[in-house]
């Protein structure tokens, strides 16, 4: 029985493929994009997540913690994440949901039983299940099992992926996936490595492989000020889309800062911590440039 670490199952998702979708977020990612807004997806392990906004200062967590990870001082509640063994004692005790565990070990069957609860909505809207993360293919075996089970239940399956996985994993999952939401983060190999931690060679090979299978792909392009908001990058997106017939649509994803606070909640430091959203006219200009050069359907999501 295949098991994996899941950090969320979100229902009524409208941006993760066609129709109404239920998106399963798997933990762990081989990339470390500086702008990542899903910080709980970076590590493959279960993590403590502390929302300071909801802490009422009752100090119960301090009392039940076996490793003294929680401290209350004059400056308030501090969490020493390096001590935390994610036993969950503080989570159980917290009266105001200030603490939770990001990540839960689940079998593919358990996940699917949650997903299929929404089947009436999939049927009426042409929706289905989307695998996301993190990088869902980092838990390749689990992701493949889940996608296979979903197909056996007749569900439409999408996967949001960076494309950074070995060829065999991509080959295996492709047979169970109807639509790939494939990230395209940077056109320059050097810059790709600088901003994501990995080169884009494997990613492009996997994208080309999907073309040979004629698997439909939506290219998802995060646009990050001072990282990849250049005409050269927009031109490269368009060129790629023009070259590959299986790219059916391009999504421009302008930077937003709503994921920055998650880093603090996990005891991490955001590498790209701009508090400003990308201006609307800048994202519209990016979309317009790509649209003009590619002739494909380009939307801002």
């Amino acid at each position, binding site marked *: 029985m295949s098991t994996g670490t899941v950090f969320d199952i*979100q*229902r*009524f*998702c*409208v*941006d*993760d493929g*066609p*129709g*109404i979708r*239920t998106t399963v977020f798997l933990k762990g990612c081989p990339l470390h994009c500086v702008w990542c*807004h*899903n910080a709980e997806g970076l590590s493959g392990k279960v993590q403590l997540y502390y*929302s*300071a*906004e909801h802490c009422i200062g009752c100090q*119960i967590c301090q009392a039940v913690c076996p490793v003294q990870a929680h401290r209350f001082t004059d400056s308030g509640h501090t969490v020493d994440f390096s001590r935390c063994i994610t036993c969950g004692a503080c989570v*159980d*005790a917290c*009266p105001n949901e200030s603490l939770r565990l990001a990540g839960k070990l689940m079998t593919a069957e358990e996940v699917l039983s949650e997903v299929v*609860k*929404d089947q*009436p*909505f999939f*049927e*009426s*809207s*042409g*929706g289905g299940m989307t695998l*996301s993360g993190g990088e869902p293919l980092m838990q390749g075996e689990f992701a493949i099992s889940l996608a296979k089970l979903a197909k056996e239940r007749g569900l439409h399956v999408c996967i*949001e992926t960076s494309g950074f996985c070995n060829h065999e994993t991509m080959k295996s999952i492709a047979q169970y996936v109807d639509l790939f939401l494939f990230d395209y983060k940077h056109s320059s190999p050097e810059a790709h490595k600088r901003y994501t931690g990995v080169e884009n060679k494997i990613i492009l090979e996997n994208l080309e492989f999907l073309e040979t299978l004629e698997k439909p792909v939506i290219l*998802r392009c995060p646009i990050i000020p001072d990282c990849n908001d250049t005409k050269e990058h927009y031109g490269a997106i368009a060129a790629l889309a023009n070259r590959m017939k299986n790219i059916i649509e391009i999504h421009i*994803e*302008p930077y*937003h*800062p*709503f*994921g920055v*606070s998650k880093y603090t909640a996990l005891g991490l430091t955001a590498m790209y911590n701009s*508090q400003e*959203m990308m201006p*609307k006219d800048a994202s519209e200009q990016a979309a317009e440039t790509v649209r003009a050069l590619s002739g494909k359907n380009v*939307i801002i*999501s």
Partner: protein
Amino acid sequence: MNYHHGFYLKRLKDTFGAEFHGMSDPVREAHLFRKTLELYPLHIEKNDLIAGWYGYTSREALESVYVPEPEPVLKSTREKRPVDWLRAHGYSPGGYDRAHHEVDYKTILTRGIDSYIQEVENELQNSENSEEKTEYLKGMLISLKGAERFSTRYAELAEELARNTDDGADKARLLRIAAACRKVPMKPPTDFLEAVQAAYLIRTLNCLSSYTCCSVSFGSFDQYMYPYYRVSKENGMTEDEAIAILLQLFRMLDNTSGNDCALSVGGVDENDNDATNELSYILIKAEKKSKLRAPLFTARINRNTPKEFMRELVSKELFEMGQPSFYSEENCRAAVAGRGIEPSVARNFQISTCMNLVIANAEAAHGWGCKVNCHLPLELALNGGKPLVGELPLEFKTKPRTEYKSIDEIYTQYRSYMIELFDIAMDWNQADTVLQAKHQPNAWLSALTDDCIKRGKDRWDGGARYHNLIIEMMGFANTSDAITAIDRLVFEQGKYTIDDFIKAAQANYEGYEQLHKDILHCDKYGMNIDRADRNARRLLDINAEICEAKSAENRRYLPSLHTLWEDVLWAKGRPAFLDGRLSGEPVNKNAGPSTSARRAGPTCTAISACKINQIRYSGGQALDVHIGIRNMDSIANRDKIAAYIQTYFKMGGLQLQVNGLSVETLQKAYDAPQEYSDLLVRIGGHSRYFRDFDDNMKKKFIERFKIEEGAFG
């Protein structure tokens, strides 16, 4: 101009009271209605296309004739103390309901008021009439004839204004109004302007006759107005001209009724084909343009509702105004038929106010009938016949007990207490309604209600074919969640006793934090978990059965899950519940789950709500969901919301209120995060609960939303 209203014209009564002294109740009340119609200040504003403004031009002018306190309520001769005790425990028995009415506009427009006068005069010729019936018919006649004076006054005012203007176009416009008001509502209208004029005057007369504008509705406006619209269109009326008439109608409604006057679009024809028409679309355009509270825009959705119509209804402009409320044609019809009404009659149901389903031509509907505290019988069952807090010194026939081995035993005891509480409340309600109907009858509304002329009776006093009372089940989800938690933590795990639950709730869970947390972690209705949803259904089936058993003759008690805003206001006065809800916290809203279960998301909420036998709750209910989609301009996204709505109806839902993101919603969520704990915001594939943003990010999100979405508010 804002006009101020005061329907309790005490000065009027003081002035004319002596004139009508000694007359029978229906004749006296009819004369007072007639005097109101003769004396109430009327207005026609610059550029008006139809007449209809009324009221005082300043608060001071109103106060010179208006005494805010209502007439002394006629005292019921019945013992009231048990009812007062029940009130202290959130069990409101209601009483005579002046508001919540709707008439059959289609028939009235077709016939004209003159034909009702003729019918009453014919009935008066019946030599077998009792004196009581004759007096009631006289009251009807006075009331109906008063309508002619009212519309003629508008005609005279328009003619006077026309005489005083040199502008040719202005004069023509005013004379058009005058001509319409000399004709309608006494004679049938022949074109769109006359029909809208007639409908608005009839509605105004309905309001004035009942001394309230609250919840006085219009029904399926696009259906009964369509023939008149077509005539005008064939005679050259443009879409802009039709919209201008509707916008004035909406402005006048807004001045008198807020957002409780329902106006429906959509529906089916006599062969069950979709009946959406050109006027339906024009009404949506007018509604989007008006941006007013009124009317309460309601959409009747059937299996064949066109995709294009759904796209027009699922729009950013409407959602930001909290409009429309969606109703399932097929399920609502089944619910009305479930009351024991013939299917051929049930198909004519109309939507009235915020959730009533009525047979407009033949019903006296008590729309805000009785609020039932669903949690109180559970308290009595578990606490030896006593409420958790305070006293309830009633002598119950139910034998008290405190020991239970299963939830089956708890349900049996719950049912027994609920029957006793319901009997006390409804017996009082019935007595009060009949007493009021006899002494302050409404002969105008009764004349427009089928059978009342033939019977010579008030609609509330046996005149109407159907006499329905809505029974609002307050806090049902909290109550069933409490039973689910007891089942889990007491009977299954043995971790706590029922006494632990009672002591903890009595202490508002202070000192019982672990139990509180354990309760909150139990399965809840609304999370699409069968165990919890089964308890909700079981509880509601028991309560429905009690309502059905109490119904007799033409009087029906219709269970409802409607809470309006009482989920917050009513709940403020309620102590802690056994489901972990703290003192003063909101209870579940309408058919939705309790606060702690809301975050399961809109699909879970919808599926859970459809596990309830909604058809049996024909008193009406809405399911309120928040859809956090930012980009409502996208047709794909609108289609997804439309699919959600239609799936809910396919699964058995009656009514759905979808709240999209708006500046107003976000601001409310900022100010009261607990009440919007389920508000999920989505941006570029990133989803988070709004409450989880820190303060700075919440402000940023709202600010950004205002700029990007061009939202008003």
